[in-house]
């Protein structure tokens, strides 16, 4: 199959995808039960939306001012626990990086892995902003922090075992 027929085959397969798929079980009973226990959220009034737009226009200024005055990250306002945890981890990470800087590297791609873990850390913090008390997310963030330290430590050979 050449490139263009390959491309066409994929295009055709996308077009042929069924619009509907049948679940294996009846989902309605579960939805009905959950809905009976769930309260509806009321729509935000328009005046609030307008106020929000005005506030949004001032947000960059407020952000910079707040950051300058307090020297803190405003994203952690709803998660007071996050700032000390992050600060403690960053300190450990920097100390570890300093300690291993003159050790020979065992693996070549550890920086890439570290970068991906840092991206995961940012995504988790982002997710925590919408669900600040989610224990699963908090646990995963701790795991990602630990993995970063592990990768830095394991990718460098300790001096005492060098020949």
């Amino acid at each position, binding site marked *: 199959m050449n490139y263009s027929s390959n491309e066409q085959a994929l295009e055709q397969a996308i077009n042929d995808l069924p619009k509907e*798929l049948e679940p294996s079980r009846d989902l309605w009973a579960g939805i009905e039960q959950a809905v009976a226990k*769930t309260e509806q959220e009321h729509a935000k009034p328009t005046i609030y939306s307008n106020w929000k737009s005005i506030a949004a226009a001032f947000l960059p200024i407020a952000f910079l001012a707040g950051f300058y005055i307090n020297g803190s990250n405003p994203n952690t306002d709803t998660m007071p626990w996050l700032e000390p945890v992050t600060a403690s981890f960053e300190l450990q990470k920097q100390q570890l990086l300093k300690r291993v800087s003159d050790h020979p590297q065992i693996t070549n791609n550890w920086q890439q892995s570290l970068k991906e873990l840092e991206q995961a850390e940012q995504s988790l913090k982002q997710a925590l902003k919408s669900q600040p008390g989610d224990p699963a997310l908090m646990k995963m963030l701790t795991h990602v922090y630990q993995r970063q330290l592990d990768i830095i430590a394991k990718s460098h050979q300790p001096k005492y075992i060098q020949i």
Partner: protein
Amino acid sequence: MTGNVIQPAAFKQRQNNADDEQGWIEQLKQGKQTALKPLYDKYGKQVYALCYRLSGDAELAEDICQEVFVQVWKKIGNFQGDSQFSTWLYSVTSFQAINYMRKQKRWWQSWFVDKDSTSGEAMVDTIPTNDEQHDFALFRSGLDKHIANLPQQARIVFVLFAIEGWRHEEISKELNIAVGSSKAQYHRAKKLLKEALTLEEQNRGVVA
């Protein structure tokens, strides 16, 4: 002459359907739980299809699909009618599916796996054999089985971009990745799907 011209009866039917849907939405906004059922009957299988394609897991997709309709009930007040209800519903579905998957261990594991470990060949190998399919009621045909076998990030980007029509800018924002990463994941998904389709074609030729 019929062609594509909408006949009065068909037009009337379509108009009635739209009116019905509008009525259910209004009732839902007024807190009538019974109005959710006709919307589920109309859109449930489409929502499930999107959940399945995004998650690649039939069981998880069922849980997400249920959660989507609970969210529709909860947040219907936010639907202002600026777009079609179906557009709003698919958008709720995509956000809900991604949020739901974020809470799964597999989501975070996908950050740690070797990015080149999946090949089209490996994807074809994971397709159930005929014997396995016999008891596998949820086996999907066509492209769906290959989409389900894509690596997680590539699958989500592919479904949102190629099937749902999102822009890479929107995808990158939702997944908290760079626009370039979104494009790279899309090309990776396309490459893997083409390889899988080619191999499947070749295997079919050998069997025949």
